[in-house]
């Protein structure tokens, strides 16, 4: 995992270097079949997250969907932020996902970087797509208008 992150970071550095050298793109934009495949892969993760969201993960029967219908009140757009629930530390979305899994839903939680954790983040973030990124936002939460039905990726729900 760490290595991958490093590679991504290095690729980023290379891209900046090349664009600074006058080239428009470090690599060709992803189009066609490759773009479609990537989108499908993402939607599969969202769908997996949707499924995980709506079944109990722990021993008390509480699924995330009980309290966060449509991924509401998870506010991915506000992370990272200092969170009072986690002692005022600056935390990422996955830290609150993990906290809710363990503390609220009495579950073991998912390993960071696991397909499951990524799927949970993908679902919450996808449902809140369009929200303006506002790190540290700390307001009365609301739900997001959900664009569902036609255009919503087919999931088992």
């Amino acid at each position: 995992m760490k290595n991958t992150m490093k590679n991504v970071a290095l690729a980023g550095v290379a891209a900046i270097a090349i664009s600074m050298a006058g080239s428009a793109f470090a690599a060709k934009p992803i189009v066609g079949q490759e773009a479609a495949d990537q989108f499908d892969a993402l939607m599969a993760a969202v769908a997996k997250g949707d499924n995980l969201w709506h079944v109990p993960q722990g021993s008390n029967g509480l699924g995330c969907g009980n309290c966060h219908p449509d991924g509401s009140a998870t506010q991915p757009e506000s992370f990272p932020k200092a969170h009072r629930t986690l002692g005022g530390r600056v935390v990422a979305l996955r830290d609150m996902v993990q906290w809710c899994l363990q503390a609220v839903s009495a579950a073991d939680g998912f390993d960071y970087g696991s397909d499951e954790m990524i799927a949970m983040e993908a679902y919450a973030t996808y449902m809140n797509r369009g929200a303006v990124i506002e790190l540290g936002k700390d307001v009365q939460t609301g739900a997001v208008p959900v664009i569902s039905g036609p255009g919503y990726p087919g999931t088992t729900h």
Partner: protein
Amino acid sequence: MEKISRRNFLGVTTKGAAAGIVAGTFAPTASSMIGLGGVASASAKVKPFTFAVLTDAHLYDIPDHRFDAFLEESVAQVNALKPRPDILIYAGDIGQFGKDAELEKGQKILSKLKMPMLVIPGEHDYYLDMGADWRKRFLPKSKQGLEAWSHDHNGVHMIGMNSILVRDFWTDKGLSDHDRMGWLEELECHRCGAWGVHEKQLAWLKKDVAKLSPDTPIIIFTHSPLWDYYPRWNFQTSDAPEIRAILSKFDKVMSVHGHVHQVVYNEIGNMTSAGLLSTSWPWPYPPVELTYPHIKMNRQNPGDFKDGMGSSSVAVGADFDGVMNYHAFSADLLPENVAAGIAV
């Protein structure tokens, strides 16, 4: 005789009643008996009283679940109210998956109420067996077959209806009872469609209020709101327009509903409408603009499992003026204006 049938109707018969309706420690007090057996008066004068409302306990068939304790706490809250409410209405979602064990647990906890109780169903009580266990435990024998009731108290005509009836989406697809309940268990159910009270109850309602004069105070209880709040989460009742039309002849109608797990208020025509605190979990406000945005609850602290919940009661005055009081489990849930009680 009249008293007995009325008490049957209230579901407060003696322990072990064959119908299995809510039984327990109810001891009739002078105030709780006032008005029992009465008929709706044509005069708008109300003998002031208080009623309590509990809703959305979502009990699980898991021993010592924390929601059990929340329901117990809400029962203790309303029992301790001064003056003691004459009557309590349970506004639906006692259970989570409609299992009889959940309903049985709820019935046991609710039997500690010190006032009579009337109950309406929520979707979580209903769709495992289409309400069979719920009816057995919570619907008085005399009401079997309808799931709607009316009850006159201190000059007020109270009405309760089953507002969570959806059209059959399971038979064609060959879904099991368990699958059907699983779908309905999800708030954002993509398949369930908009629910309502449907034709039979509408016809009943028409008849029930036909002879009442327009100045009769009306309080109607449904699980879901009688206005289009957020249909995606079934924060609506599909035939609410018909209900409001039938009740439009009255000077004032007070609607009180569960399902939304939050403080919310609206007015349409002659109807005021107030949502209730749950005893399980709170819900975030849907992404719609409210006409009365100052009547809301505050953001919850996820680290405080009791935050966002509680019980509710309404003080009904002589002129059929009402004040909804929310009794939150945790401090700071209610903004000052809401904590002071809202006019309903």
